[in-house]
Each structure stands twice: as structure tokens, then as C-alpha cells.
């Protein structure tokens, strides 16, 4: 099997009114690696995820995935190319059960059209059964087997995070963009999340991880990118970045001062 394609950003800039949220950012996500994106609040991390997933359009620059230019595509088309994302709020699909949430994630795998649905063709029924099993297996893997038929919006926050992740993985992405996946999780849940992300990487999925939890990011990532005021100020292996004075000054140092204050 050939290696999955790289996701590359070339000189991406995004302004909101007079404010430059992202300035001339270039980076490459090596296929099958975990990249951590850190930086103080307002550094442009979430904006970057919104740009890659098509919720915002860059003013200048290009975002490429293999030969596909993502810059002008809408979120759904980008997702269909194999790029999935999660949201900071970990929102469930309201009114759907836990397993239905994951099955919506499997939507693009269905081939049956209106005709075979209305005629209940054997192929359509086989497909529905197979996907229900896949969804159940995903829920087991993400520790939600006991909640299969619960209303998704009744789940506690920690479980919602895992449900959201299971749903995003359900569409068999090649790249997942995780916007603060550890926010609101306790230590045990954060460890389980880290283990799951390693499983995804071992399956060859490229992960971009935005988070505030510095030990979590540095312990997990193959590559760390640090942003401040919309620009990349450092990038490299976790150890190199951790020792970088500019990073300690801009981000880690700032946090230490906050903690000391």
C-alpha cells in the first residue's frame, strides 16, 4: 500500500477585519504522524483548523492535500477527500442515539440509493447491517458499548468527546484535525485519549492536534508546531521545540508567569 498523501500549507494568511488571525503559515503534516499545534489563546490555532477543514477561506496561500487544492472547497468536499475534524465543544447530533451518531459518520460508505431503500433490496439491507456492526465495533473501541442506545445529548461531557472522535473516525479519514480534544477531560480520560490517538497513528492516520495541555501534546506528538500572534515561531521534534528559547519566552514562559502570579 502506498503511503497516504501529505497535507501541506503554503503561506496561508487569514484576516478578520483589520486583525490578522493567521500570518503566512507554511507547514507540512507528514503522513501517519501526530503533529501538535500549541500556542497561547488567540495564536490562530483554531482558525488554522477552520481553514484546513473549509469553514473559513484563506485570504492568500494554498492548502494542498496530495494533488487536491483544498483552498476553495467546502467542508463536505474536504471531508470526502478524507479529512475529518472535531470541534472544541464536542457537540452531539441532538435527537439521535449514540450509535446513530456514529452511523451518521459512516454515511459516505453507503452506496444504496433511493430506489433500493424504497424496495428494500438485499444489498441495501446487507449494507445497513454491516455498517451497524462497524458502528458498534467503533463504540466498543471508544469505551461507549454500554451507551449504544442512549440519547447522545444525555452523555456526560467526557463520553461526548469520545463519541465525537468515534463519529469522525467512522468516515475512515486519512487525516483528523482535533480541536482541543483533551479540554474538559480528567487524567484517566486524557490517558485513554492519548492511547486512542496512538492507535490511529499506528493505522496510518495523520493527526493534527490543537491543545493547551502541554505535557499531553509533548508526550504524544512526533512533531510540534508553536504559534504566537498568528505566526509559526517554532516547529520540530518535541525535545527541540521544548528547549527553544523563543518558545519558552512566548508561550511556556508566559504560562509560568501566569502560574506564579
Amino acid at each position: 500500500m502506498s503511503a497516504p498523501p501529505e497535507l501541506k500549507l503554503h503561506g496561508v494568511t487569514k484576516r478578520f477585519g483589520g486583525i490578522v488571525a493567521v500570518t503566512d503559515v507554511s507547514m507540512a503534516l507528514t503522513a501517519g504522524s501526530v503533529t501538535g499545534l500549541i500556542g497561547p489563546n488567540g495564536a490562530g490555532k483554531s482558525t488554522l483548523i477552520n481553514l484546513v477543514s473549509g469553514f473559513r477561506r484563506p485570504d492568500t496561500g494554498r492548502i494542498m492535500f496530495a494533488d487536491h487544492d483544498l483552498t476553495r472547497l467546502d467542508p463536505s468536499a474536504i471531508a470526502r477527500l478524507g479529512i475529518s475534524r472535531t470541534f472544541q465543544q464536542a457537540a452531539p447530533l441532538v435527537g439521535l442515539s449514540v450509535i446513530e451518531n456514529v452511523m451518521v459518520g459512516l454515511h459516505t460508505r453507503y452506496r444504496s440509493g433511493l430506489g433500493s431503500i424504497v424496495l428494500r433490496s438485499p444489498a441495501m439491507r446487507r449494507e445497513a447491517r454491516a455498517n451497524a456492526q462497524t458502528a458498534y465495533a467503533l463504540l466498543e473501541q471508544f469505551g461507549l458499548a454500554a451507551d449504544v442506545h442512549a440519547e447522545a445529548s444525555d452523555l456526560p461531557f467526557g463520553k461526548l468527546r469520545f463519541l465525537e472522535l468515534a463519529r469522525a473516525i467512522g468516515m475512515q479519514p486519512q487525516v483528523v484535525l482535533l480541536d482541543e480534544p483533551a479540554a474538559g477531560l480528567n487524567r484517566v480520560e486524557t490517558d485513554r485519549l492519548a492511547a486512542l490517538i496512538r492507535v490511529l497513528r499506528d493505522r496510518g492516520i495523520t493527526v493534527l492536534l490543537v491543545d493547551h495541555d502541554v505535557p499531553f501534546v509533548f508526550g504524544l506528538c512526533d512533531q510540534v508546531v508553536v504559534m504566537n500572534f498568528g505566526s509559526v515561531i517554532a516547529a520540530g521534534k518535541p525535545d527541540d521545540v521544548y528547549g527553544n528559547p523563543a518558545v519558552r519566552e512566548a508561550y511556556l514562559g508566559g504560562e509560568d508567569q501566569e502560574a506564579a502570579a
Partner: protein
Amino acid sequence: MSGWIGRKLEMAALVLVIIAVVAAPLSGSRLLVYYFTITALYASVVIALNLLLGLAGQVSFAQTTFMAIGGYGTALMTVRLGLNPWLATLLAMLLATLAAFVIGRPLLRLRGHYLSMATFALALGTYSFVTAAMGLTNGGIGISGIPPLEIGDVSFAEPRTFYILSWIFCALVLAGYMLLAESHVGRAWRALATGQDIASTLGIDVPGLKLMAFVLAAIVASVVGSLYVEFTSFVGPDLYDINIILSLFFMLFVGGRGSTVGPIIGAGIVVIVPQLMSGLERYQNLIFFVILLLLLLIRPAGLLGRMRESVPLTALLPGWLRVTREGGTA
């Protein structure tokens, strides 16, 4: 489980509908058969509206426009052009499908209330157009002499025969709704109704699926529009008045959005209850709307709608009349 109770309620309602549909012609009352026929036709439109609003969450007032395409399309093609009514029904349906694509495609790409506002304008425009376009529609006089549907020697001008046809059509629409609702398409509709962003990150073609629901609803509305005028042999603007579209929404909300049998129950109530109060004449509408209002206050999700919490009857009383528990405030 609330889901299980919901399913039992739906089953009970379905049995009730079947018994009523079988019993009505046996009663020998021509009036009852007539009202039940009208119920079947409106119920079909409301089931399709339920697919669009109850499942896919799209508020569209375009149903009467597509009914008018069916009704006037059939009238013009049969009376003026002498086409067979079956063929006219089919051609009008294709025209409604095309119109739904043309209207729906740009509107469903937009978010927010554009669809509601634009289709409301469309509903008002439809009524004005069919009233004003004298040359085409005969204005307020309407077009009469529309030939009935026939199969061999069987004429659907006969009320009992048409009664059977209308309920068969309604059953087919209901079956289609049920099959779609439990498929991956129905699930995607429910997903995008409340979580459009999430659905799009999962690769779901949100505008495309909305358009599919919009077109399906238009097709059903158009066929009902045709059937109606082929039964009464007359088409006029009043069939597509703004009151009609509001009644369709009442039928859906009383029966229960997103419920399966609810639209039939809702259509039955809105068509038949006012007839029971015919002795009250002037106050008929007022009493009817008070009943609807009370019903929606007690069961906001509709008679068969899925409710997470029930609203106690006492909640309808003013605060000073309410019995408070354990000295707490109501």
C-alpha cells in the same frame, strides 16, 4: 424506554386509522366518505411535509405551489389540450419536480430563514398568479370539467372508488416515508436538521440532501394537487389560498413532527373536527383554534410527537391558581 412507548402509541394510532378507513364506507354516510377522502389527500401532503420539516428540519411553505402545479397543470392539460388525466398527472409531476429543483437549489444552499421567507413569498405569489392570470387560469372562476381518472370501466369519479385510490396513495406515501426515515438517508436528514456543521465534516452533502427532501415533498404535493381536481373536476384559486398552507402546518404540528402516523391523525382532526361543530356556525373557527392551541400547549410535540418531558395540565393555569408542592413556587 420512551422510544418503546412512542412505538406503541404509533401502532395504536395506525390501527385506529385503519379501522376508521375501513369503517367509514360501511357506515353508508356519503359525507363521512367525502371528508375521509379529503383527509387522505391532505395527509399525504403532510407526510411529505413531515419528511421535509420533521426529518430534514427545513421550513418550507412551497407545498401549495406544487399542489397548484399539479392541479392547474392537470386542468390545463386535460381540458385545454385533451390529454389523458393519468398522463397529465405524470407530466404535471415532472413539471413540479423541475420547479422544485429550480427553486430549491439556490435557496437550500443558504442558511437561516431564506427558505422560509422565499417560499412564503412563493405561496402568496402562487395565489395571486392563479387569481390574476385570467387567460391561463380563468382567475377566480377557475377551470371546470376536468375529466376523472379511469382504469378500463372503473371510473374514479365514483366517490367510493376514489376513496380507495386516495387511501392507497396515502399508504404508499406513508410506506415511502417510513422506509426513508429508517434508512441512512433519513438518519442524515435528522443529523443535518440540528447539526449542519457536524454533518458536513462527516462528508455529508448537506445542500444535496436538503434538495432531495424538497423535491420528494414537491412530487407528493403535485400528485395530490392532480388527484384532488380529478376528483372534484374543478380547480380554482381557493384550493391554494394561504389558509391551506397554514392548515397543512397545523395538521403536522397537531399530529406531531417527526412522528410516523401523526400527519394522518393531524389531517383527520383539522378536516373533520370543524364539521362536527357546524351547529356553532359563527364560533366554529374560534372554538377550533382554541382546541388546537390547548392541544399544542399540553403536548408541544404534537399528539404523537416524541416528547422528552410531559407538560402537566396545571402548567396551563395562571400562577395564583396553581397548587404548589412542598411550599415551592410553581
